[in-house]
């Protein structure tokens, strides 16, 4: 009778085992024969000492296969990301998914005016407090580059605002070499010291190779510094297909993987066993407008594919998903974000960064964030799957209710409906037509605005203990001082 083509519960898999092998072999070949450029003398020296073939003139590193394999075995396959209050810790492993807002937007969509503008510190504080309240956005990110502090310290200041306004763990990144050191100091204050932070990481730092096949000094140094302190580093190759990567999906996956592996090797050589996340933010390059498309279906396919390669290596994975190329919170915005959020969950990507973001990766919107939160909730429900056991099969119940009966007042219904059905907030309209009309025929955006306002009015994030707050303020002040900026 049974003729199953698969044994376990099916999930999304775009690549066959053979495809993965081919991509892996291709990347190994790339690393061994072509290599990557690394604009960092310390990295070059280290790689040279540890057996890579380094051409110091062209700054090219060719990595032998055995070295890549050794390093792959050293990287942990589970990362526990800690929250300040211990209530929002996240395990990054296997098929577990953690959503967090898209990071470092240059613009903010002001819901009062409907205009795009540069973000202010208070916008970021609101976004962080909102995220703190959102159930399915389980981690924070330094999501806005605020314009009311000097640019030189903007990276540190973002983290300062996040740490003050939410206990959730943070996905962040530095814009400079010193930036990372200052940011680490702030995290140490919250964690209770350098050793504590290494033992209980509360933040992940993103670091991006420069496609194709290049590492800038800042990014490679950020990676080295993370590794030294055992801070989880999210390595994020970001080829633009057809511009800074082959236009073919398979080709760009080979390049993506080679760029990732070169970073992984560097990190593991600096400090064996340091946590590394297989990440990425690939985009498809729009051949008409020259824009880097985050909402393209191929962009989503890339994330789902390379995360399979990451899982093949047994590593935690990450991808930018849930962003939209739309300029306002409209249908395009909802559909592009929604599809990606669902696909990412089905692919079992561990860290999914993107909710709230639109206008490619340039803008954040509070309204979009609460809408995406709902989609994230739906996606998490989806991957929870269909529970099949005696109780859920409910044969006894059907015997009891019988043909023509009603289930609504049954204890079984009462017991199970919350577990089986995802309950969205009032943001999602599920009313019958006349009620909706009588209540003002509100659009999703209008409901989202009300929802945002309500949360921001009511929600109180777990405050920082006084001593930590004092130390953090003092640290921020001394950072500003060292840049000759008065607080």
């Amino acid at each position: 009778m049974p003729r199953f083509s698969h044994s376990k519960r099916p999930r999304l898999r775009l690549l066959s085992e053979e495809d993965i092998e081919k991509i892996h072999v291709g990347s190994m070949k790339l690393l061994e024969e072509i290599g990557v450029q690394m604009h960092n003398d310390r990295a070059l020296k280290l790689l040279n000492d540890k057996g890579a073939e380094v051409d110091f003139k062209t700054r090219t590193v060719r990595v032998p296969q055995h070295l890549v394999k050794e390093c792959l075995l050293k990287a942990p396959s589970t990362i526990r990301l800690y929250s300040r209050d211990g209530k929002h810790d996240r395990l990054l492993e296997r098929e577990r998914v953690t959503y967090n807002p898209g990071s470092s937007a240059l613009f903010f969509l002001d819901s009062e005016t409907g205009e795009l503008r540069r973000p202010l510190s208070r916008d970021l504080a609101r976004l962080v407090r909102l995220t703190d309240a959102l159930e399915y956005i389980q981690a924070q990110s330094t999501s806005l580059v605020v314009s009311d502090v000097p640019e030189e310290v903007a990276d540190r200041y973002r983290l300062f605002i996040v740490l003050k306004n939410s206990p959730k763990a943070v996905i962040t990144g530095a814009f400079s070499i010193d930036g990372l050191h200052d940011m680490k100091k702030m995290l140490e204050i919250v964690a209770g010291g350098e050793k504590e932070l290494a033992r209980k990481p509360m933040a992940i730092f993103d670091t991006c190779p420069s496609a194709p096949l290049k590492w800038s000094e800042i990014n490679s140094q950020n990676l080295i510094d993370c590794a030294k302190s055992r801070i989880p580093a999210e390595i994020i190759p970001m080829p633009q297909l057809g511009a800074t990567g082959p236009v073919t999906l398979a080709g760009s996956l080979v390049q993506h993987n080679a760029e990732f592996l070169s970073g992984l090797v560097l990190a593991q050589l600096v400090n064996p066993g340091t946590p590394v996340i297989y990440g990425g933010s690939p985009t498809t390059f729009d051949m008409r407008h020259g824009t880097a498309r985050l909402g393209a279906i191929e962009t989503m396919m890339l994330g789902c594919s390379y995360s399979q390669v990451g899982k093949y290596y047994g590593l935690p994975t990450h991808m930018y998903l849930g962003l939209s190329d739309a300029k306002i919170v409209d249908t395009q915005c909802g559909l592009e974000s929604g599809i990606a959020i669902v696909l990412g969950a089905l692919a079992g990507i561990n860290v999914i960064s993107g909710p709230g973001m639109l206008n490619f990766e340039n803008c954040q919107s509070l309204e979009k964030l609460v809408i995406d939160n709902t989609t994230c909730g739906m996606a998490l429900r989806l991957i929870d799957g269909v529970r099949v056991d005696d109780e859920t099969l409910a044969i006894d119940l059907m015997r009891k209710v019988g043909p023509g009966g009603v289930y609504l007042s049954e204890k079984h219904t009462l017991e199970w409906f919350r577990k089986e059905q995802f309950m969205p907030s009032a943001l999602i309209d599920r009313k019958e037509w006349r009620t909706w009309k009588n209540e003002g025929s509100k659009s999703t955006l209008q409901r989202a605005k009300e929802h945002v306002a309500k949360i921001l009015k009511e929600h109180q994030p777990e405050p920082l203990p006084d001593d930590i707050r004092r130390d953090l303020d003092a640290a921020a002040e001394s950072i500003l001082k060292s840049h000759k900026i008065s607080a």
Partner: protein
Amino acid sequence: MGNDFIQSLTEAVVNYEVEDAVSAAKRALEAGVDPVAAIEEGLAKGVRIVGDKFGAEEIFLPELMVAVEAMKQAMTILKPAINKSSRVEKSLGRVMIGTIEGDIHDIGKSMVGAMLTVAGFEVVDLGTDVSVERFIAKVKEVEPDIVGMSALMTTTMLRMKDVIEGLRKEGLREKVKVVIGGVPTSSEWAKEIGADGHGWNAMEAVKVAKRLLHQPEERS
């Protein structure tokens, strides 16, 4: 006779054949075709046809970029021959362009370069991560009509100001127009740092460049 050679240059560009453009350029020179005519009526005409198709959304960026590449490569053959002939090239002007120090975002800047080429400007591309000193040294060497700077990050766009100040110190500011672009920049920022213009995209870059050099909005 000369017409055939010129036409094959146009065709090479229109058919996106880089190698054909190069060999057509060589053949044209051997046959004694005026290099200025070969560029103006051959290559530039082809690129204009391609540009129009792009504007009409018939073709996409890869076609445009390869056509510009074909023109560029053929130009390297034809240009050295121009010095010998007496006529001057009639380009819309010389634009020197580069991505600012600390910033390696390349694509937008290159697209701007390509569109300016299509529009009839002579473009000198300095690449990315161009230091303030290099911008200034190159202005002396290349003597452009316009300096275009690109920055994609809020941190790196600050350096644009240093270039403009440097130009002023060296007494070069009045000799060139300065145009800026890239996601974090704006016309307000252009004003603040004393640049002459700003463009949101490659099409605007062309418009701004034309306006600054007192040329008509549309090319007839």
